[in-house]
């Protein structure tokens, strides 16, 4: 089984690769790639990312990745992480407004906590509240803590696509899912045992039951 980790120049992916290698079945082979054909040749796709939305979209387009990613996400398990979740929505407030990939209807907004003690970025361990069942949550207890680092959050139009929430001044969508796509705002690769469990579940997930 080949697992592609999409490397489009947005941040350090070593931890993501190492964490997946740590939990994947022994026949799994993790490749770091920005090549559309390698992505489409893989059984599973991990789409990480950190940094700014505009730069992220520019780098995806530079590498002609949006179409291949869309195709991959329609036909095989696809895991978005952090910025790799946010860019799946329609549009972000970041960088004076950026059009995103638009797979999930909705907006990405900046945290504006009224409470001065709530710092932006949110940085640290927050609770992932599972709003719906999902195979990637198997073995992870309700409200387990995951490591988050972000200044913007996703607001999907269709609340049924929000499979987990977190609370930081307000309750917001912390994970999105639809058929073959699961996307999470937290960093499972930095979330100790619960994060590794989620990644292990992903490497064993074959997508929606038909």
């Amino acid at each position, binding site marked *: 089984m080949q697992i592609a980790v999409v490397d489009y120049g947005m*941040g350090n992916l070593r931890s993501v690769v190492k964490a997946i290698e*740590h939990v994947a079945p022994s026949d799994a082979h993790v490749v770091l790639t920005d090549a559309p054909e390698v992505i489409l040749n893989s059984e599973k796709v991990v789409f990480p990312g*950190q940094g700014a939305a505009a730069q992220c979209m520019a780098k995806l387009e530079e590498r002609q990745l949006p179409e291949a990613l869309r195709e991959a996400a329609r036909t095989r398990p696809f895991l978005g992480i952090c910025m790799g979740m946010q860019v799946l929505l329609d549009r972000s407030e970041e960088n004076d407004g950026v059009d995103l990939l638009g797979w999930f209807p909705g907006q990405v907004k900046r945290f504006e906590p009224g409470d001065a003690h709530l710092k932006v970025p*949110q940085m640290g*361990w*927050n609770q992932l509240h599972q709003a719906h069942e999902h195979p990637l949550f198997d073995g992870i207890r309700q409200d387990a803590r995951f490591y988050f680092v972000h200044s913007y959050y996703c607001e999907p139009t269709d609340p049924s696509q929000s499979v987990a929430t977190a609370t*930081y001044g307000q309750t917001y969508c912390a994970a999105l899912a639809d058929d073959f796509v699961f996307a999470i705002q937290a960093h499972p690769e*930095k979330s100790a045992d619960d994060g590794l469990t989620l990644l292990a579940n992903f490497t064993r997930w074959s997508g929606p039951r038909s």
Partner: protein
Amino acid sequence: MGLAKRIIPCLDVAEGRVVKGVQFEGLRDAGDPVEAARRYNQAGADELTFLDISASHEGRETMLHVVEAVAAEVFIPLTVGGGIRTLADVRRLLHAGADKVSINTAAVHHPERIKEMSDAVGSQCIVVAIDARRVSAEDEPPRWEIFTHGGRNPTGLDAIRWARHMADLGAGELLVTSMDRDGMQQGFDLELTRAISDVVPIPVIASGGVGNLEHLAEGILDGHADAVLAASIFHFGTHSISEAKAVMARAGIEVRD
């Protein structure tokens, strides 16, 4: 319920070895940073910080291998500080597997590099370390100045204004150390921590002076810190991370179990 306050053990590393060693029951090699990191992860540390105090170029190269080895098996956030001067240094450490780097002296000498670094790799990776000493007289309103070189060299920079400036330039987090309190085990300089935390929009880590577990809770409650960093109280086996979290939880602070 929401975001937990973080406890961050800090390990000093020289030439690839943990300085002074870390005391854990059954630890095979007290100087091995990878084993120490693994044990702290198992003990419930929320993040780890490695401070590279190597004197040599070879020592810093060794640190890269230490970071690679830790990042390959310890899956919690890792910050590396010590001797990081340029964007190239930052990229090397992040590439090796660090999640954040902590910039100290270079920020004082070349503040514009904080902007360069955060633009290039993202604010969330850039921690600015602020070492400050109280310079006001007893009967004056408190004032702190930035010092470099382990608290020896004054810079003339006001610590509060400096903290705000660093946040404006793109720092994602501030590590605030009282050089008056460092190593004294009498608690953080809470006034300093609070004065900075209340004027910057980014998270603040309190450091310098922890002697008991109540000091950690004070750093959060009275210092308004988002995280607390400590070295010796954990390394010498005096207290465990879970004891620290229990004390913080009893004080009403949200912690990760």
